Each structure stands twice: as C-alpha cells, then as structure tokens.
C-alpha cells in the first residue's frame, strides 16, 4: 500500500492568529483512521531537514487536511506554501484511536483538537467534547463541533457567556467524569499528566502523544517515550496509547 505522496497544496490559510489549515491533494484512494498522522516535508531543500509530523485533521476521498500552529522553522516554511505548490508527505502512520462502540468523551487541549476532530466527525456514535483554550478567540470550528458532538463544553482562562473558567481537565472532572463512557484525549503534556491524576485506573482512556520524529516508521528509535514496559515509539507503538501504559 502506497504511503508516499507527491502532492499539491489545495489551500493553506491562516484561520486564526498563527493557526493554519492546510489542505492537500491525495492522488490515490487511501485509508486513514482518526489519531493517525502524516509526515510533511515542508520544502525540497535540506534546511529544515526533517519532515514534520501532523495529525490527520480531516480526510475525504482525494483531499486530506492538517491543522497546525506556527511553532518554529518548519511550520514557518510550511505556512508560506501557496495553492498549487508541490509538497511531498508520507503516511498515514501510527496507531489510531480504537473505534468508539458507544458515545464517547473527548478531552482536547488547544491545538490538540487537530487530532480529535476527525474522530468526532467520523463515527455514528457521538462525543461529549471538553475543549480547553486560552481565550474565546482561540476556539476553532465551534459551529461544526456543536453540530457533530452530543455536547460541547469549552474552558477558557476567563469565563465568558458560553465558556467555563479554568483548565479543561477541571471542567471535565466537573461535568464529564460521571459519564460512564470511554475517554479520548489529546493536548499538551501538562493536560495528559493532569488526566493521569484524575482518571481512575479502571477507565478506558486513550491519549495521543507527541515526540520529535525522524523516520516516522519505527526505524530510527528517535521518538520513544516512557511506558510501564520500557521505551515505546510514538510513531508506531503510538501516537495513541492507553493512558494507563504511560509513565508521564
């Protein structure tokens, strides 16, 4: 099965300050699953050298989308690409979120939304979404998320008329913990650590992790993180892990 694509940029827009949505042509029909990622080669030269991993934000037939935040040189070069520019990328890679067999809970922190949007969108079962951002301005795809989810709870640093004050894990603890449903989460390390604290060992909780990557296919052993049974590769043993496995 083909996993390497010479593609073209369909659109690449700054949808919020320093948040971009890039959409790429995907010539042949491939299968992708929520939680998987692709590695984008942001230019054809050697600086930046390595590809950059991004979660599949959305994928329909011949179009695949990635939602990214400007961070350093790679995302900076990526953000300069314009419609029609060529770009190569590889994937989809990695372990996906186990398919929900019932309604489910999603906890997303900031750009972590990029990893769970596709999950929320794709299944008949519906999500109780707990979504944390710093300020109202940073809320992405609010309308779509409301449509797709059973319920959307949003936390921001300051309370607003439709968001709660505080961090998303607090909000989830308050409004979601009681729901007897599986949990899917993606967000910054502090959020995962917090989840680890508050989520009972007996519950199913799947989290998407991040680590620097070179190969993306399990060959370089560069992307390992600590787990109960030693180092595991985010790119192939993850990025989605059972929270209980992880040593954070």
């Amino acid at each position, binding site marked *: 099965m083909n996993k*390497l694509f010479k593609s073209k940029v369909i659109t690449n827009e700054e949808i919020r300050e320093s948040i971009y949505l890039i959409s790429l042509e995907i010539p042949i029909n491939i299968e992708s699953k929520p939680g998987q990622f692709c590695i984008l080669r942001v230019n054809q030269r*050697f*600086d930046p050298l*390595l590809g950059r991993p991004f979660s599949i934000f959305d994928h329909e037939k011949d179009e695949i989308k990635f939602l990214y935040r400007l961070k350093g040189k790679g995302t900076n070069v990526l953000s300069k690409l314009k419609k029609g520019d060529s770009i190569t990328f590889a994937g989809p890679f990695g372990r996906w979120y186990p398919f929900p067999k019932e309604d489910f809970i999603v906890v997303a922190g900031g750009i972590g939304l990029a990893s769970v949007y596709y999950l929320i969108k794709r299944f008949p079962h519906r999500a109780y979404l707990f979504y944390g951002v710093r300020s109202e301005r940073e809320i992405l795809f609010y309308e779509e998320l409301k449509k797709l989810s059973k319920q959307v709870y949003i936390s921001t640093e300051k309370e607003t008329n439709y968001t709660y004050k505080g961090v998303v894990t607090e909000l989830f603890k308050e409004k979601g913990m009681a729901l007897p449903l599986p949990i899917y989460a993606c967000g910054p390390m502090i959020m995962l650590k917090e989840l680890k604290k508050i989520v009972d060992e007996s519950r199913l909780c799947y989290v998407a992790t991040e680590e620097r990557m*070179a190969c993306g296919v399990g*060959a370089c*052993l560069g992307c*390992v993180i*600590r787990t109960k049974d030693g*180092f595991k590769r985010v790119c192939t043993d993850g990025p989605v892990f059972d929270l209980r496995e992880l040593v954070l």
Partner: protein
Amino acid sequence: MMPSLEVKIGSLSFKNPVLTASGTFGYGLEYSQFVDLNLLGGIVIKGLSLKSKQGNPPPRIYETPCGMINSIGLQNIGFEAFKKEKLPFLKRFNTNIIVNFFGENLDEYIEIATLLDETEGVHALEMNVSCPNKDTKWRRMGLEPELLREAVRKVRLQIKKPLIVKLSPQVTDIAFMAKICEEEGADAVSLINTIPAMVIDIKTRKSMLGTTTGGLSGPAIRPIALRAVWEVVQSVKIPVIGVGGIFNAEDALQFFIVGAKAIQVGTANFINPTVTVEIIEGIKQFLIDERIEDINEIIGSFKE
C-alpha cells in the same frame, strides 16, 4: 546495454554498491512498505548486542542545520530476538544482510561476533568501534590505535565471514586507524560514523537531548565524510565503504570517484524513504550518460 553495478567486498559480491546505514533502516521491515528490499545492494542492521538494550532517555533526536543529532544509545532487541523475530523475514530477500554489532567490552564484541558468524542468513559483520553514548575503556576503542588493533585482531580470529570495521571520524588520523584494521585482517572499513555534537536549549540551559552530546549526521557532514574516505583510500588496499550525508546519486558518485567501493545511505532514508532506489537509478543513469559500462571504472577515477 545496461551498465554493471556489481561490486565485490572481500568474498562477498553486491548486485549494486548502495547499502543502508546501520541504525537508519531499522531491521529492514520498517522500510519494506516503501522499498523492494531485493533492489538494494545490502542492508546494514541497527547495532546489535548480545543482550537487548534500552538505549538513552528521550528526547533522542534534534534537528540541526542540514543535519540532525541523535542519542539513541544503541537501543536494540539483542541477538536472540534478532535471530528469531527479524532474520527469518530478512532471509526472504535477495540482498546482503550485514549486521552492525558492538559490546560493552571486548569479550562481548567477540562473543556476539562469534554468534553472528555462525548465524545463517547473515552475510557479513560490521564492527561498530564507536559507541558515543557509552563509557568504558573499550568505548575508546575507536579512538586509540592500540585498543583498535587489539579489538580487530581478536574479533578477526573468531570469525570467517567478511569483517567490516566502521570507523569513527573523531580521530586525528583516520587513515592510520584504517591501516590498523587492514593490518589486523579486516576485509573492509566503513566510514564515517556520526560526529560527536551538541545542541542546547538556551531557555532551560539543558541539552536538547536526554544526553549531553549526540552524534551529528546528514548533508552537513558529507564534505567531511568525503575527505575522510579520500584520506583512507590513499592508505589502504582493502575496500572502503563511504558513509555520511549521502542524499542523492550525485553525492554517492562523489564517494565512488574518490575511491569508495560501496556507499551507505543513512539519514536520507528518514527524509525520503525511497531514496536508496532513487540513488541506484541515478547512478545507472549517470553511467549510461557517460557511456561507462561498469561502476568499477569510476571507482577511484578522481583527478587530483
């Protein structure tokens, strides 16, 4: 008429001189989804030790200008697991399997070399004399001529299969180190291994890696590797395998022209998983364009 890409290293012949570099191609399987392994001249396996190794704490890699540094720390599954879980798959392919090996001390080197020598399906051994992330007397085997001499001699005595010694660039006179390997009966030398390097985070004042230093690889080091190969080629008669920042056919051809008998592609696999086959095709095309019938004709054709 198709030019011949076949080269010989010791008793072993390679359908083409393009191999993968140890640690950058996993156990072969990982890249079989991109590359028909039958097309490769050979696959050099990730550094293998007697017992499995955990490797270094993360983070293990960081990007640098036109390169990357890594501190994997020679994590590997160990000899037994390799033999049981990886080798059977590799045997299905018509290519040379070269196992890169190391030990914590010379006895371990000898022990695993002996086992590999007896293992069917392993065509040659590559002795990694630079374990940048470990610290023992024998860690310096790649740096001190007399330690290298003793190590190569003792390993050589134990094995019948072709022995390639992989040299560290971190020495004053790499040609002299290669000479020692030749004198002690190595069938070939491969160079260069990564160059010790460092990147730190100015905010935290800590290394960008889980360890203080790592090994630099990628296009950044290619001109250094080429010079090292050139120095070595002038001092030894045994085949020299060029490694370091090879990203395309033109890069590879530079190594052949200065005298490398074969090359290994490392970091480039990460950036372009099909790079090895593209390099093989590119070399063929160059030979055709230049009306050269045999790759061996350009090996060492450098005009000073």
